[in-house]
């Protein structure tokens, strides 16, 4: 069954079975809660920011293998990245999911394995859930720090 193997690459199943970066951060710099209207799946994403870098990132919530693997990969890829760099990676991933960008492995790391998801429009939302949550978390972090001083 070719199609299935394309979609569910071994790397995806591996991240799904052994989630990295799962859980919550107690003193997070920003926290967001997103949900996928198609299936009701939820994602809680926390980041800890120091000197404009993501020093810690965790994602929690249940979901399908694609959403879980995507969250797991995200936490690895953006760990210790500068906020602008992280946003650039998220944007690249988003464009790959919409078929608008040649995937760049240097930017995406393991998340390049999710390329095949782009062919399944309903599942694109699953893959993007945590990644777009990070975008919102960074925006919310910037807003609070801008207002707070």
């Amino acid at each position, binding site marked *: 069954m070719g199609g299935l193997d394309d979609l569910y690459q071994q790397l995806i199943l591996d991240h799904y079975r052994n989630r990295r970066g799962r859980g919550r951060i107690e003193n997070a710099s920003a926290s967001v809660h997103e949900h996928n209207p198609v*299936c*009701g799946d939820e994602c809680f994403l926390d980041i800890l920011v120091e000197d404009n870098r993501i020093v810690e990132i965790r994602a929690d919530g249940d979901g399908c293998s694609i959403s879980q693997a995507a969250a797991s990969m995200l936490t690895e890829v953006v760990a210790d990245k500068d906020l602008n760099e992280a946003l650039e990676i998220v944007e690249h991933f988003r464009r790959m999911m919409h078929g608008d960008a040649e995937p760049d492995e240097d930017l995406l790391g393991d998340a390049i394995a999710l390329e095949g998801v782009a062919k399944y429009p309903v*599942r694109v939302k699953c893959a993007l859930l945590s990644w777009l949550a990070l975008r919102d978390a960074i925006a919310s972090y910037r807003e609070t720090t801008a207002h707070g001083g």
Partner: protein
Amino acid sequence: MTTTGSPALDARAIRAEFPMFVAPRPDGRPLHYLDSAATSQKPQVVLDAMNAYYRETNANVHRGVYEMAAEATDRFEFGRTAAARLINHPREALVLTKNATEAINLVAWAWGARELREGDEIVVTEMEHHSNIVPWQIVASMTGAKVLFAPVTPQGEVELDALRALIGPCTRMVAAVHVSNVLGTINPVREIVEMAHQAGALTMIDATQSVPHMPVDATSIGSDFLVFTGHKMLGPTGIGALAASPERLNAMEPFLGGGEMISDVTTEGSTWAEIPWKFEAGTPPIAEAVGLGAAVEYLEALGMDRVREHERATAELMINALGEVPGLTILGPTDPDRRGAAVSFTLDAVHPHDIAQFLDSKGVCVRAGHHCAKPLMRVLGTQSTTRASAHVYTTDEDILALQGALIECRSWFGA
């Protein structure tokens, strides 16, 4: 057990009458279509009737003087007559709509938005499809009325005592689904209608999942309003119906205004056409009504008793087959006499999206998600389920293919 005396439906022979099942799929995958609760496949006769309408008598309805326009009107009105006959309802009180959702919205706006007052209560069940919740919430927020939810047990049945207790002097409307699209539960709608009427409330029965699968007698149910949708009953999309009591319809103001629904229009104001046309503004879905009429004739020829018996037998087979899958939990009633053949389940920790995707690779089409019933999902303690659902063309092979694919699916995802 219902015994009808007449021979059982031959699902294999029926499949031969559905083009979808006759043509092989381009990639050679089989088609085990188990998503009829979302929408049914269409028999050749329905496609032919719609095609013939466009080819032979396409003209706008109700106004044309020429013969072809009269013929178009006849074919359109035949759709109404057939739909009304199927549910034993007077044809002049059957309003054709775009779908079940529009039919419920029609009542919410034409009745609810005008009649509801601050403090009035609308009682629905936790088992409703969003289309029998959201329109009520919208008119409630406009009028100051409240929407109350009658609880559903973890086994997937409406708690009738709790429903009775919720219905009181402030209750203006009781809205309930006949057969659950998620759990297959058949609700005692006659009893619910009686309860509501005793308290002086009106009733809305969502018969979207019952009319396609079993004999439904709207007169004997006695609801003020009852809705269903064409595309789940072997008919086309774009057509649904509101069966209402004629007195109610006569008392109500129109929903949408425009052509077709008026008696007279002057610069000072307008008067309305007779029912049901008063509620059908603009050019109606003509070909769709023709297709609906053909679908009803097809179902009538099969016999709704036999359709129900096939449904019951399929539900029984599905529940037995799914029961043999390790790690699988069926949600909702397991007694096939008390349910339709829409069966929701969970499979260990495997997510419904993954299940549906895996099953698709085996040619098995099922639905994964919240099935537009998020309040019910909360009762069941889950975000989403996988649902398999059947119709007259569902065979034993479809169910066995489902069972086999689920067993493989579990090991693939390492559950």
